[in-house]
């Protein structure tokens, strides 16, 4: 039951060692930097130190309550990340797969639209545009509310 924000790369296998032992169902998701058809070299991710950690912890705890999770893990990087590098991961452990899958999706939807991270695209010519929030992400989040 932990959230972490860091600049350093992480090893998914090492992060998951012993995770969810005895739970029955473990789901993990990790997001990698896309090259967007060769347009991107890297992403630069800015965040709000202090708020980020609190927000991730709060979303994790809410997911644990809502889906009765045995365990959860959120890891999100910031700084400059080259194409192909892992950006973030979530892991959820529950008695059965339905809750584990749903909780992972729930956490992803919150991370996309409500965790204080901002991505900027870095191309061959240097720093480019800030990534804009997508309406679909907002819609995905809305399905959990109310």
């Amino acid at each position, binding site marked *: 039951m932990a959230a972490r924000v860091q600049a350093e790369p992480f090893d998914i296998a090492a992060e998951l060692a012993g995770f969810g032992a005895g739970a029955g169902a473990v789901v993990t998701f990790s997001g990698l930097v896309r090259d967007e058809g060769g347009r991107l070299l890297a992403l630069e991710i800015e965040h709000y130190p202090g708020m980020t950690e609190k927000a991730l912890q709060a979303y994790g705890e809410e997911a644990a309550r809502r889906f009765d999770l045995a365990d959860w893990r959120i890891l999100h990087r910031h700084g400059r990340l080259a194409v192909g590098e892992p950006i973030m991961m979530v892991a959820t452990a529950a008695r059965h797969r339905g809750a584990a899958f749903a909780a992972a999706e729930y956490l992803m939807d919150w991370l996309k*639209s409500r965790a204080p*991270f901002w991505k900027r695209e870095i191309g061959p010519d240097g720093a480019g545009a*800030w990534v804009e929030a997508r309406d679909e992400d907002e819609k995905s989040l809305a399905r959990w509310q109310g």
Partner: protein
Amino acid sequence: MPLDVLWFAWLRERVGQPRERIETEAATVRELVAELAAMDQWHAAALADLAAVRVAVDQELAELDAPLAGAREVAFFPPMTGG
């Protein structure tokens, strides 16, 4: 009251600094926005389109009408793009 104002992503670039300490008597975020936008052209540019701006008061997401009584830190930033 003294208040730390933080800026992130393209709002930070428009304002030209990541944080500043100000003195304000603003009662709500909306009043603070009006004060900040009146400071200079850079602040005005950052806050020109409030539909594209999100706010956190003391590191919790907040609405424009949120009260500022007792607040120590207000952050302005674009819609978040994590994950």
